[in-house]
């Protein structure tokens, strides 16, 4: 089914949180997942990353990129492209907030003084089985319904005839 990029990003974020990622890393993964799918890359690496929680690339890759950025001099850093699932690494690079580039010999350049260009928007054809797997993970964040929650949790009444 065709989905919006934001729809996929939000679902992937919630799935990562439901699978045990801390909130910031989950948000980053959400953006990465949308970019990954927009670029037509395999869903398997995304699913493997979710399966690896609470360890794995969803926690380790952001740290590696933070470390590279910390080593920048005059806003510029050049380091080898991190090792890991190649397509997923690329998706992480493409969602960094700074302008980045990779060279033929496997080097990553980050310019901390320039913002990354935003990805052009494309619809995402998310396979139903992936959607369902992520939906189940995301549902772990939902609080079961109770009478108290229903009547007072939102702060509004149940009827609005005026």
């Amino acid at each position, binding site marked *: *089914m*065709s*989905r*919006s*990029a*934001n*729809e996929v990003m*939000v679902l992937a974020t919630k799935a990562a949180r439901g699978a045990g990622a*801390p*909130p*910031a*890393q989950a948000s980053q993964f959400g953006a990465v997942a949308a970019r990954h799918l927009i670029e037509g890359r395999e869903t398997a690496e995304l699913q493997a990353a979710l399966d690896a929680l609470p360890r794995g690339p969803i*926690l380790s890759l*952001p*740290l*590696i990129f*933070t*470390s590279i*950025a*910390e080593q*920048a001099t005059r*806003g510029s850093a050049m380091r080898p492209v991190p090792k890991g699932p190649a397509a997923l690494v690329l998706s992480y690079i493409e969602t960094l*907030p*700074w302008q980045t580039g990779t060279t033929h010999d496997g080097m990553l350049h980050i310019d*901390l*003084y320039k*913002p*990354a260009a*935003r*990805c*052009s*928007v494309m*619809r995402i054809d998310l396979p139903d089985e992936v959607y369902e797997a992520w939906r189940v993970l995301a*549902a*772990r*964040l*939902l*609080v*079961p*319904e*109770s009478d*108290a*929650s*229903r009547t007072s*949790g*939102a*702060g*509004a*009444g*149940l*009827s*609005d*005839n*005026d």
Partner: protein
Amino acid sequence: MKDIFETPAQMPLRSPGTVMRLSRMGSMFPTRLSFLRSLMRRLAAERTQVRRDIWEICEQGFGHAVFSLTLGGHDYALVAVSTDLPPELRTDRVIATAWDGAFVLFDGIPDAADIARIKANAPLQEAGRFGPRDLILSRANKSVRLFAHVTDALRAGQQPDVQMIRDVGYLMRTTAVYGNGKFGIADRAAYHERPGLEGPFAAEMLTVWLIRHFTHALVEHVGRGTLAPALKRHLGIGNSTGLGMAPFLVNHPVLLNNWMLARETALARVRAVEAPTPEHRARLCALGARAAKHLAQWSVPDPAHLGRIETLRADWEIAVRALDPEKLAVPRPLDRVMSDVEQMSEDVQELMAALVMEPFGDLIDGLAECMADPYGAFAPPLRDTDALRAQTERAFEWALTPDYAEAAACGQFWYVSEAKMEPRLGMRFTEEGAERETPLDIARRVQAAYRDLPAQAVPVSAFLARHPEHALAVERVTLSACYPYAEIRDNLIAQTCLPIDMLRCKLSFFGAAKFDPKSDRWTRITLCQGAPLADELGEGADDWWLPVFAA
């Protein structure tokens, strides 16, 4: 040679420590930078014409209609579906499953297949499925009492009771206005560079204004008569808003920063005006009187909020004296006015801040172009944990003192219910679900990260490798160095936290007025009240700040 793009002079900005407190955010009023105002100026500049392309509505008011317009060279259409809703199903909550009206803002002019698809899906809202040409999805419920009264009056060949129009102020109230990809509609990025829709929530505001237009047409159709223009202008579009709006401000820190920074910069520019012209002075005085009249017409059922409005009315009588044209004939008079009201309530201060901006569109309207977020969060990493500590102490000092183990400091928790994913707020020590808490506890997280900082500086990445749970706190502290107005400077899980303050802040940026709180986490408001009608987009279309009922 003088630079024609010279930046206007400005006084120092009010500090984030002053501006970003919840109580002050909960005192905000709409300004000329509010998104509806910006949109109306754009529509007026283009002399936009609203076309009624399709009207297939029965005598009782049910069916569908299509209105279209051209903005910035693009066609947009509102597809409206009106249904017969049993009273027992009428709730404004997210958990509702049916509504009086359902709406889609469509990209272009819909053909028969598009309309059939929208007619089938829009009434289902979250349970429907939408596509990339559906830009905005919305729904609304009638004010049954006012709708019935107006139709009855029109059928009798009369105009409706002006008191009732004034007291209710809308024929329908929206209960959700979904954008940015929800349920398959278009991502905002698909149209955020289009002329007229660049600003935050511009497409949503356009939808709301068109829904208002539809409600006027609907009531005249069912009533088989014509509403007097003054009454029609005062009939805005209501809105019921709950907790779903609050997390947005926390989860979009750069946007919040840009909105507040634009507003504070506007105020600082106006405070720097050396000598307002006689016309400006007269206008400021007139606006002061208008604000007093608006406050007099702002009445709500809730006794506590009504008491607050009554206090504001009384205080305003004193504050407004500073706007006497003779008193404004001093150097930088508006800086003095703002300094003087610092001794008064936050309600008075924020009303005055909104007022003094009003006559100076040439100085401040351009700031509306700075309120979007074209780059996302963009901040260089902090050097090491010593830098992280120093920045925390600079920007989050307010978060470091509470004892978050105390019930008073952590008594509430935000969560999402499995019932239609409705956002809710629970009491941590008496309700289930805190382990699934939504992470809006930024203050608590920042303090926890601060306490775990090592004595000897290490790279932030090394710190996060040991403490991955602190990544969100580190991200917010890092952002604070570049985005000073990004953070609400209050503890959002404290027992004393009032979500209604967050709602009012965001809604004031939309351009809402007549806040009518139903609890500390739910409010009704009116949008577009006093806004130009579709046939009034021309000279003077921008003069509707704090509208008063003039029928």
